[in-house]
């Protein structure tokens, strides 16, 4: 187990924070179409968990997934280009915000179907280990996913076959607008207990606390342990989706939002750095993102003639012959 790197953790949460703010700006200016699900407020979870992983380890993210992709090491410029639908994006503009993936750094993709990725990651980690690679996985999901049967089936398979997957529940209090208390019978960690999986609760606003819990779990898993669950308590600072910037939905009081925002993972981690060091990281992040936005907007839009490129990895075409009707 490695100790926390305070500067590294700060750089990651700051990068995600500013990336998301820049992305929201691009949404408002029409340069990202379809909007995004901002990860603002939850940065400490992706940062803390991914800092406990190695480059070869595997992760899956969610529809609120930019943080996971960036924290695992994807290039911010190519990630931003993907959000902007450019040929230079991670997915050549074929995936967008909800499906950004970079398999070269172990990101098997953001996955926009709630609860769907856990079983996929379990299979991927099992397969890699079967082939002799010493890898573990982390799959991120929200509190809404704990009521998806598919995820509970994945808990069972991973525990039954002792596949080292860290199930990371980002409990931000709401499944879109549905409060956890109105949606979850029992507890989130209790679901893990039902499958014999160790589970812990951590303050998701504290990147070092998340890292410590994740690193301990990862060390147990690398030592032959089975899957574990971490419930990271957090708060979503912004909208479920940027459409809320246009359509106001009334489900959180201003007081509640203010209280949630008061515990900011960027400040919690930033306060652990000397002011000049923090300013230096901020400047580096800003330069990275200036370049990322410029790269994204300069990238060519994909040629419509290639709209169905990669539909089949095999290069198949669906109808053999007959020409166009």
């Amino acid at each position: 187990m490695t100790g926390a790197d305070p500067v590294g953790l700060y750089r990651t949460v700051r990068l995600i924070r500013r990336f998301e703010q820049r992305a929201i700006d691009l949404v408002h200016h029409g340069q990202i179409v379809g909007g995004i699900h901002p990860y603002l407020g939850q940065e400490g979870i992706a940062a803390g968990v991914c800092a406990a992983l190695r480059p070869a380890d595997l992760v899956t993210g969610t529809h609120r997934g930019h943080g996971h992709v960036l924290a695992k090491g994807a290039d911010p410029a190519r990630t931003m280009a993907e959000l902007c639908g450019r040929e230079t994006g991670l997915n050549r503009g074929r995936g967008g915000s909800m499906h950004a993936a970079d398999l070269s750094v172990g990101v098997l993709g953001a996955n926009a179907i709630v609860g769907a990725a856990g079983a996929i990651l379990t299979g991927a980690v099992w397969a890699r280990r079967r082939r002799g690679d010493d890898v573990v996985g982390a799959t991120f999901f929200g509190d809404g996913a704990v009521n998806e049967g598919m995820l509970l089936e994945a808990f069972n398979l991973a525990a039954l076959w002792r596949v080292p997957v860290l199930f990371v529940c980002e409990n931000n209090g709401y499944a879109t607008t549905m409060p956890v208390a109105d949606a979850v019978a029992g507890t989130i960690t209790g679901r893990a207990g039902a499958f014999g999986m160790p589970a812990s609760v951590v303050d998701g606003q504290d990147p070092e606390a998340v890292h410590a819990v994740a690193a301990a779990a990862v060390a147990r898993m690398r030592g032959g342990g089975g899957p574990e669950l971490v419930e990271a308590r957090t708060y979503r600072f912004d909208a479920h989706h940027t459409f809320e910037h246009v359509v106001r939905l009334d489900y959180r009081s201003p007081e509640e939002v203010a209280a949630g925002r008061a515990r900011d993972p960027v400040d919690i981690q930033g306060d652990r750095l000397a002011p000049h060091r923090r300013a230096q990281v901020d400047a580096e992040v800003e330069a990275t993102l200036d370049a990322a936005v410029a790269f994204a907007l300069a990238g060519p839009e994909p040629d419509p003639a290639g709209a169905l490129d990669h539909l089949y990895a095999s290069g198949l075409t669906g109808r053999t012959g007959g020409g166009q009707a």
Partner: protein
Amino acid sequence: MRLSYRRALTRALADELARDESVFLLGEDVRVGASTITSGLCRRFGPERVRDTPLSEQAFTSFATGAALAGMRPVVEFQIPSLLFLVFEQIVNHAHKFPLMTGGQCAVPVTYLVPGSGSRTGWAGQHSDHPYPLFAHVGVVTAVPATPTDAYGLLVSAIRHDDPVVVFAPAGALDVREDVDTLAPVPFGRGVVRRAGDEVTVVAVGHLVHDALAVAEDLAGQVSVEVFDPRTVYPFDLDGLLASVARTGRLVVFDDANRACGVAAEIVASVVERVRLAAPPRRVTRPDGAVLPFAPGLDRAVQPGREALTAAIHHVVKDAR
């Protein structure tokens, strides 16, 4: 060599498990071989490669997706065709979409094997679907082999293919046996003329190929029937069918699935968009929106059969004369 359809599937699995370490088998009761298709494979290849799963179809289907993303070639067996409704999300929304959504970063080579698709007589509403048109509609490679030779060849091709493939082994074909000289992979999208004729082309899917051949034989001397077996309904061998229809000028499609939005509708549309037939084409299918009822007489009444095919053939031939 005399080979049954079931043993052809078993042999394809065994040959690919032996040939390629990345191939493994996953499903319910596959160790014991409750479907009879996987019998003996666990003894030969071990429980790591012939993996029994708990009854968690959605999770083990996605587990296979993940294993495929990590370089394996899983074969997932479903004992009941209707289970494909349960895992449609996992196959379509994930396995099938990943290559495009990731911009070509990955391949998902999974084979879904469905032995006993369609009516099994007496298994009623939730065990008797034949849901291959759904997969053709969404663009997943869909094979419906009619013969032992093709069952072997298409299953081998499916396992070696870099995209998801569903192999529907119709219940009505599982007892077919034939003399086989050589077994080899069968390419997708390449149909075959099972019987040559020059007055009407009957496209028959899966086990209905055998019924179509029987009807063609019965009608010999009255009507010259050509029987075309597409072997895969997606991709579909349109060139092969157009060549047949160019000879016969008439078309009947014999398809054991519901009529509306089905494979037969697609085949008819694809042909009439391109050529002028001598008579309006006919479809012989299950009725629109059918659910198979239990009682044997009711079950049969809903399936497309030889009588209905015979009537349709007479109809298109009479229309033209």
